C-alpha cells in the first residue's frame, strides 16, 4: 500500500489497492475486518496500478495519479464509475507519481518523474496546476528542487509549502543524504529546500511518506530502512 489519506471533514480514510485496481474508502474509526464504505473498481475506472491517492474533502473529489495521467473521481463514487476529469497529455507531463490538493488556493500539485522502483530518483519535480485542470494542460509553474522525492508528500496550503521526503541518490537501500525537505509552491523555482529536517547526515536513512499534525505543529514521516515512524515538532514552520 503506497498511498493513504485521511479526510477529517467526513471522517473517512481512503486507500488504493494496486493489485485489484481499486480505491477503497473506510469509516475513520474502522478496525479489524471491516468492509469498505465505497469501492471504485471496474472497467470504466481506467485504474491501472493505483499507488497513491489524495482526497479533496472540500470539493468532494478523489485524485489518483496513474503515471501518464491523473484520474479525478467523485468522492462518493462507488462501483464501476468513470473519472469525472482526467489530466493527461504531453503538456501535462509524464511519470505522475503522487498528488496533493490545495483547496484554499485552488491548486493541484503533482509530483512527477520520481518515486521508487526503477524510475529515475534524480528527476523529481512538482507540477502546479489549477485545481480543476482537465485534459492536456500545462502546469502553471514547476518546483524543481526536490530531486529525489521518495513517496507521497504533504502540503501546508496556508503557507503554500510542499513537504517531501528525499531518498538517497543512487540505488542503495539507505543513505545519510536522506532528508525531509520543505519547498514553496508559490511560484516556479529550482533550488534547495527552504528547510531540511532530520538530514542530510541526520536520523533518516530512507524516508518515505509524510503527514502533518497541524494542531500540534508537528511533522510525521515514515522511514523504510528504519521500519518506523518519526514525529518532529517544528512549530516555526506552521
Amino acid at each position, binding site marked *: 500500500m503506497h498511498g493513504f489519506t485521511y479526510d477529517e471533514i467526513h471522517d473517512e480514510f481512503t486507500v488504493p489497492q494496486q493489485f485489484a485496481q481499486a480505491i477503497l474508502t473506510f469509516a475513520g474509526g474502522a478496525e479489524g475486518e471491516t468492509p469498505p464504505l465505497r469501492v471504485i473498481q*471496474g472497467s470504466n475506472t481506467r485504474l491501472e496500478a493505483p499507488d497513491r491517492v489524495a482526497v479533496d474533502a472540500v470539493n468532494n473529489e478523489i485524485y489518483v495519479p496513474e503515471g501518464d495521467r491523473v484520474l479525478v473521481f467523485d468522492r462518493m463514487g462507488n462501483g464501476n464509475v468513470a473519472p469525472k476529469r482526467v489530466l493527461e497529455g504531453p503538456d501535462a507531463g509524464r511519470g505522475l507519481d503522487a498528488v496533493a490538493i490545495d483547496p484554499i488556493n485552488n491548486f493541484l500539485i503533482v509530483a512527477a518523474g520520481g518515486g521508487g522502483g526503477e524510475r529515475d530518483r534524480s528527476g523529481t519535480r512538482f507540477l502546479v496546476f489549477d485545481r480543476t485542470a482537465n485534459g492536456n494542460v500545462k502546469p502553471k509553474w514547476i518546483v524543481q528542487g526536490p530531486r529525489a522525492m521518495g513517496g507521497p508528500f504533504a502540503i501546508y496550503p496556508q503557507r503554500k509549502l510542499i513537504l517531501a521526503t528525499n531518498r538517497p541518490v543512487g540505488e542503495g537501500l539507505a543513505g545519510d543524504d536522506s532528508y525531509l525537505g520543505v519547498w514553496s509552491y508559490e511560484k516556479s523555482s529550482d533550488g534547495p529546500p527552504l528547510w*531540511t529536517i532530520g538530514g542530510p547526515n541526520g536520523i533518516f536513512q530512507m524516508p518515505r511518506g509524510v503527514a502533518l499534525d497541524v494542531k500540534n505543529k508537528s511533522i510525521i514521516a515514515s522511514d523504510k530502512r528504519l521500519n518506523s515512524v518519526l514525529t518532529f515538532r517544528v512549530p516555526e514552520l506552521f
Partner: protein
Amino acid sequence: MAHVVRPWRISRPLRLFVLIALLGTAIQGGTPQTKTIGSERLVSVEPLSEEAGEICEPVPPSREEMLLAAMQQRQDARDASKATRSAATQDRSKLKPIRWIRDPYAAYSSVAVDPINNEVVLTDENLFQILVYNRTANTPPSARLTEPKRIIAGLNTKIEFQCGLYIDPKTGNIYAVNNDTVDTLVIFDRNAKGDVPPTRELYTPHGTFGIAVDEAAEEMFLTLQHDSAMVVFRKYADKDESPLRLLQGDATGLADPHGIALDSRNGWVFITNHGAVSSRSPRPDARASRRGAQKQNWPLERAQTVPGSGRSLPPSIIVHSMKAQGNVPPLRVIQGPKTQFNWPTGLAIDEQRGELYVANDIENSILVFNVTDSGDVAPKRVIKGPKTNLANPTGVWVDLKNNEVWTANFMNHSATVYPLNASGDVAPLRIIRSGPLNEPSLGIGNPHPVAYDSKREQILVPN
C-alpha cells in the same frame, strides 16, 4: 565645518534586525528560523536624542576613494549574496524526533529447519536479519529473549523485508527471499554471519514472496505478488539468468500469490493466494523493466496491466503440476468459507502423510489439509487458541526428521513448535522469543505513506 542635527537615529535592536535581514535569516531563541522578512521590518523607532555640540560635515572623497569604496561595496554585496544563499535553507538536519515509533525486537516472518546441523533459521522483517538458533532452543518465560547463534544483517547483506526461506538440505546454505524493496534473491553460506555480502545473488522479478526447491530436478520456484505469477529458475541460477518457466495469466488462478510448497511425490506445486489481481496483456507502448529486458520467461509487469480489469477474489490455494507453464488452469483449487482461509500465507508439505500445512495469518491459526483436497473443504486439523501462542503466523515449516511443525509469528516476537499431529488449542513444545514476554509487536512492515487522524489524534501507518 557645518553643524548637522540628526532628527532621530536607528535604535540598536532595529539595526540588529536589519543586519539579520540582509543575511536572510532571523534568530529566535538562539535557533535559526525561516522568516518572512518583509512583514516584520518595523520593530521599533526611537527618536534620536539631541546631540550636544557640533559634528563635522564630511569632506567629499576623491575619485580613487570613491572607486575603492565602490569596489568594496560590490565585494560586500557578493559576500552578502553568498551568505544569503547559504542561509536560505533552514538546517534542521540534526533535529531529533519527539516521538519514534519502532520495534526494537525481531519480527519473525519465515522459518526453516536445518535438520542435519540441528539448527532453525528465521527471517526478521522488522530489523532485516537472518537469525540462526539451536533447533532445540527454548526461551524460558523469565528470560528476556534467546540470543541467536549467528546473525546475518547489514547493508552489505541486501536483506530487507524478507518473507521466504529455504535451507539447502545438502549444504545448509540459506536461500532468503526479499519482498518488494529488493528484487534480489540472496543466498548465504550456512556459516555466514555479520554484515557480509551474499554468497550468490539472483536478480528476480519484482515482489517475490515464497520459495520452494525441487531438489531432484534442481529447480527453484518463486511466487511473485505484484505480477500474480510464478517463475522457475535453475536452483543454482545466478545474477541475470532468465527463468526456465513462467506461470501467469487469468486462467492460472494466481491472485496475489504468497506461500509455495512442492509435493514432489505427486509432482504438484501448491500456492496460497490472497485474491487481489488484475489482468495483463502485452502492450506495444509498455516499457520493459531494466531487469526484464532481454530475458526469457519474464512475467508481464505492471506496465502491461489491462486498465479496469482488477478483481478482488476470495483467498485460495491452487494446485498446479510442477511442470506447468504459461496461462494454464490449476489442477485443483481449495477455496471457500469452510476452508477458514484469511490471508493464507506460508505453506509446508508433509509428503509422508500427504498433508498440507497453511499459516493462516489473520485467523491466528495453522490449518492442515490433505494434499488431495479440492473445493470448499474444511481443514482436517486446526491449531488455534490462546494456548498456542500463535499471533499472525506467516511462516510454517514441517520438520519430518523430528516430527515437528514450526511457525513464525509476526506479531508476538516468537517462533513456536508443535508436534506434527497437534490439533486444537495446544501449547507449543518450545518457544523461541526475540523479545520480552508480552511485549507487543508493532506490526510495522515496509511503511510507506503515513496519515494523521486529527479527530482521534492517531497516526495511521499502512504497510
